[in-house]
């Protein structure tokens, strides 16, 4: 019998969206719990490491977003072929995490002067990062291999806010644009994206 998955996070994309996208893309049922801050406070003390997201599988709980999405990737068959390909997929996702960290640092910076400074930094970082990924990316609309992996979903997810700000960001990066297209072509993902709550992050 299929395991019962329950994913708990805030009402945000943040560190849970990649896992949500995997369940959706693979057509795997899961409970998508989104907590308000006041709901989280009493649960925090009894959670494994006082952090979200958490994933419950048949009653057993784990935390740490990376561990969760890597587990979900294997459960949903989206982690790439075992061995070297799995490592490459993992590598791409790590790099995307680095990008997201930089993006979030800017979005959450309250000091206006520091924010401007960080934005300037991003203006150099992002094009270089994209140029690198374009160079390493596969030619068929997938970062690695010939079919969808969670690296493609992670890239799609990581690009969300960048593309929202500038829809033509991937104009000069045709292989990467194809990856975003491939993900958009997944009917379940498209349906999910159309319905999901709009969130700041």
């Amino acid at each position, binding site marked *: 019998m299929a395991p019962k998955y329950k994913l708990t996070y805030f009402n945000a994309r943040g560190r849970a969206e990649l896992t949500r996208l995997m369940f959706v893309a693979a057509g795997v049922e899961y409970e998508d719990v989104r907590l308000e801050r006041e709901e989280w406070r009493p649960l925090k003390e009894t959670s494994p490491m006082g952090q979200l997201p958490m994933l419950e599988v048949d009653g057993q709980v*784990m935390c740490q977003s990376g*561990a969760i999405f*890597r587990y979900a990737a294997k*459960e949903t068959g989206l982690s790439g072929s075992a061995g070297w390909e799995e*490592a490459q997929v*993992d*590598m791409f*996702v790590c790099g995307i995490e680095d990008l997201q960290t930089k993006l979030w640092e800017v979005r959450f910076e309250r000091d206006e002067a520091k924010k401007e400074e960080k934005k300037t930094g991003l203006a150099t970082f992002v094009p270089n990062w994209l140029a*690198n990924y374009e160079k*390493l990316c596969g030619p068929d609309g997938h970062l690695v291999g010939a079919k969808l992996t969670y690296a493609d979903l992670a890239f799609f997810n990581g690009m969300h806010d960048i593309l929202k700000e500038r829809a033509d960001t991937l104009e000069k990066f045709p292989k990467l644009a194809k990856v975003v297209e491939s993900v958009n072509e997944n009917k379940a993902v498209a349906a999910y994206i159309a319905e999901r709550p709009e969130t700041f992050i």
Partner: protein
Amino acid sequence: MAPKYKFTYFNLRARGELSRLIFAAAGVQYEDYRIDFPQWPAFKEKTPMGQMPLLEADGKVVCQSGAIARYLARETGLGGKSSWEEAQVDMFVCGVNDLIDKLCDAHFASDEAIKEERTKALGPYVTKFLDNYEKLGGPDGHLVGTSLTYADLAFFVGMHDVLKHRADALEKFPKLAKVVERVRENKGVAAYIAERPETNI
């Protein structure tokens, strides 16, 4: 036939040591290539993402410290014995990486005031981390399961500077002290530790 591995990083523990310990614990041969800072700018151009560490296996290259460690853990059987165990091991390693990030953030801060602030915050952070891990860790000298996994090695790596600073840091955490003991008892690890260069971080 076993692949020819070459692991490239700075002459530091930081984001390279976990992979080196996996090789050591599993008794797997590899070339431990350490780059000096002056060599780095020229070398950087030739890397996939302009970063280290790198793992080369029979001429193929992968980067991102987490992806490398996870690949090596799977290849050497140190990743956990089932999917769920693997996820738990991953979770513990993620938590240790958070700790190492905080230690590095404090160590490498260039602004004196920021450095002092971050170093001060380390005390309570480390205590909370250890409280948590003692609660979650297994009773047999292994964070997960009944034999060595790279979660134990990661914990050992994370604790190195904490224990150097205070040798009795694990006095109140008997299960965690046992984990460190088991790692030190591993012949491959003990031999490697005895020979490795002393580094600041």
